[in-house]
C-alpha cells in the first residue's frame, strides 16, 4: 500500500514537472496553432544554463533556477522576433520542418559545446534523500518540484483568469483581428507569451535534470511527451494540459514500476486510443459536429 502511495507521489511530481515543461507548448500549439516541435530545445537550454552556473560557477541551486528561466525566455524571445513570427501563417508542414530543423541544430550544437554524455546538477544537501510520512517515502527533491510546480500552476491560472494580460491573451487568441481592432498589440502579446512559455520550459529543464536526465538528445526524447500533454489535454484551457500531465506522469511511473518490460508501449497505446476516441483531446472543445 505504501509503495502505491510513494509511486503515486512520484507520478504526481513527474506529471507536474511535465506540465511546467509543456505548458508553453500548450499556448503556442493549442492557442496560436503553431506546431513547435522545438519546444524541448528551450527546456534543454534552461537545464544546461543551470548546470553550468551551479557546477562550474558555483552558484547556489536556488539562485540558478530563476536564471534558467530568464535565459530560456530570452532565447525564446529572440527567436520569436527573428524567426518564429514569420511562420505563424504558414502551413503546418512548414512549421514542422522548421522546428525539426531547430531541434537538430540545438542537439548538435549542445553536443558540440557540452559533450554528449548525461549531465547532473549538484544539488544542495537539503534536497537529498527522502523522509517518511506514515510510511510513505517522500523524496525531498520531488516534494520541492511539487511545491514549485504547484505554485506556478496556480499562478498561471490566476494570471490567465484575473489579469489584464490574461484577458488580452485570450482575446488575441480568440480573434486576432478583432483584438487588434480593440487596440491590443497582438504580435507583442504573442511574443511575450511565447517567451514566457520558453522560460517555463527552461525552468522545467533545470528541474528535470535530476529526474528525466539531461543530455543533448533531450528535445528529441521528450518531444512526444510534450505533444501528448497538449494533444491529449486539449487546448481550450490550461486545466486540460495540467490533468493530462498528471495522468501521463502517474501512468508512466506506474507503468515503469509494474510492467517494466512493456516500456513506453503503454503510454503510446493510450495516447493513440485517446486521440482516436477524441481527436480534440480529452478535455478539449468538442468539434463542430
Amino acid at each position, binding site marked *: 500500500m505504501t509503495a502505491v502511495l510513494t509511486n503515486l507521489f512520484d507520478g504526481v511530481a513527474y506529471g507536474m514537472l511535465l506540465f511546467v515543461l509543456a505548458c508553453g507548448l500548450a499556448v503556442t500549439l493549442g492557442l496560436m496553432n503553431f506546431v513547435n516541435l522545438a519546444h524541448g530545445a528551450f527546456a534543454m537550454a534552461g537545464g544546461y544554463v543551470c548546470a553550468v552556473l551551479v557546477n562550474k560557477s558555483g552558484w547556489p541551486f536556488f539562485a540558478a533556477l530563476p536564471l534558467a528561466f530568464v535565459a530560456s525566455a530570452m532565447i525564446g524571445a529572440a527567436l520569436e522576433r527573428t524567426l518564429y513570427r514569420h511562420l505563424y501563417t504558414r502551413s503546418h*508542414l512548414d512549421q*514542422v520542418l522548421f522546428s*525539426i*530543423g531547430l531541434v537538430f541544430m540545438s542537439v*548538435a550544437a549542445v553536443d*558540440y559545446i557540452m559533450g554528449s554524455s548525461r549531465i547532473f546538477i549538484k544539488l544542495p544537501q537539503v534536497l537529498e534523500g527522502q523522509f517518511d510520512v506514515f510510511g510513505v517515502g517522500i523524496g525531498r527533491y520531488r516534494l520541492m518540484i511539487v511545491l514549485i510546480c504547484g505554485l506556478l500552476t496556480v499562478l498561471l491560472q490566476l494570471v490567465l483568469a484575473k489579469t489584464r494580460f490574461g484577458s488580452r491573451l485570450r482575446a488575441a487568441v480568440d480573434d486576432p483581428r478583432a483584438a487588434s481592432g480593440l487596440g491590443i498589440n497582438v504580435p507583442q502579446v504573442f511574443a511575450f507569451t511565447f517567451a514566457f512559455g520558453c522560460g517555463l520550459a527552461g525552468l522545467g529543464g533545470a528541474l528535470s535534470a535530476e529526474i528525466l536526465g539531461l543530455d543533448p538528445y533531450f528535445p*528529441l526524447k521528450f518531444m512526444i511527451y510534450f*505533444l501528448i500533454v497538449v494533444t491529449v489535454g486539449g487546448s481550450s484551457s490550461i486545466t486540460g494540459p495540467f490533468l493530462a500531465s498528471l495522468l501521463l506522469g502517474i501512468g508512466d511511473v506506474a507503468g515503469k514500476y509494474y510492467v517494466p518490460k512493456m516500456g513506453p508501449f503503454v503510454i503510446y497505446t493510450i*495516447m493513440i486510443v485517446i*486521440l482516436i476516441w477524441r481527436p480534440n483531446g480529452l478535455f478539449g472543445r468538442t468539434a463542430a459536429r
Partner: protein
Amino acid sequence: MTTNVQSDVAYHARQHGRWHWSEFAYWIAVLAVGLAFPSRYLIMTEIVRLALFALSLDLILGYAGIVSLGHAAFFGVGAYCAGLLSAHGLIDEPLLALIVSGVAAMVLGFVTSFLVIRGADLTRLMVTLGIALLLEALAERFSNITGGTDGLQGIDIKPLLGLFEFDMFGRTGFFYALAVLFVLFLLARRIVHSPFGLSLRAIKNNPLRAAAIGIPVNRRLIAIYTVAAFYAGIAGALFTQTTALASLDVFAFDKSADLMLVLVIGGAGYLYGGLIGALVFRMLQEVFQTITPQYWMFWIGLVLVVIVLVGRQRIHAAALFVPNLILKQLAGRKAVVALSDNEAP
C-alpha cells in the same frame, strides 16, 4: 465541331501523363551513372533506396496532403520482415521476400490508415509519430526476436532469382534496387496520372469540395496510405537485403525527419522530387560529414530552417530557373494550343 473540341479535351487531359523527353533523359542518365562508377555501388544503392522511400512519402504528402512524422514505421516493418524471413530461412528468394515484406507493411498501413484519416493535421502528426514510436518500443521489448539494438543476427541473403549473388561491391544490390525503383516508379506514375491520382490532388486542395462532387474522401486516403506503406515497406526490405542489416534504427524518428527533408529538397507533389531530393540529400550529408563528422545533424537542421524561411516554392523556382530557360529555348514550350478558333458562340 464538337468532336474537335472533344479531341482537344482528350489531348489536354492526357497532357500531364505524357512522357516528356527529359524523363527519358533522366532515366538514361541514372543508368549511365550506375554503369560509369562501379566503385560507388554502395552509396548509389543507398540513394536509390532513399529515393524509393521518398517516393512513398510523396504519394501521401505531396499528392494527398497527409503530413506524417512516422513514415519510418513502414520502412521498419519491411526491413524487419525481410530480415526475419532470411534469418530463419523462411523465404530464400529475395524477390519474393521483398514482395512479402512490402505486403506486411501494406497491411499495417491499411490498419493504421483508419487512425490517420481521423482528425486534422496535428492529430495525424501525433498518431503517425506515435505508431512509429510504438513499433520501436515493441521491437525493443521483443529483442529476443528482433535482436534489439545490436540488430538482427544471421541475415544471409541468397542469390537473386537463384542466379545473381549479392557481391561485396554491391553490384547486384545496386541494379536490383534500381530495377525495383524503376518498376515502382512506373506504377506510381500511372497512379498519379489516373482519375484516382487526380482525385487525391483534389482532396488535398479542397476536401470539402472533393466530397461535394462525389469523391469518397476517406476511402481514397485509405487507399493511397496503404499503397504508400507498401512502397515504404519495399524500401525497408531493400535496405535489409542490400546491407544484410536490420536494427532498431529503422524505426527512429530521425529517419522520418530526414525523409521529410529529402522530399522538401526535391520538392513534393511531383514524382521526381523524392528521386532528386535523395541524391542531393546524400551529397549534402557526405559534404557535411567530411566537414564535421559528428555534428552533421546541425547542418541538416540548418538546411531545413533555411529552406522553410526562404520558402519551398521560391527555392524550387530558383533551382528550376535555368533548366526551364533551356527547355523554353529548345522546345519552345508554353505554346498552349489556342482554342478560341473552335469555340462556337
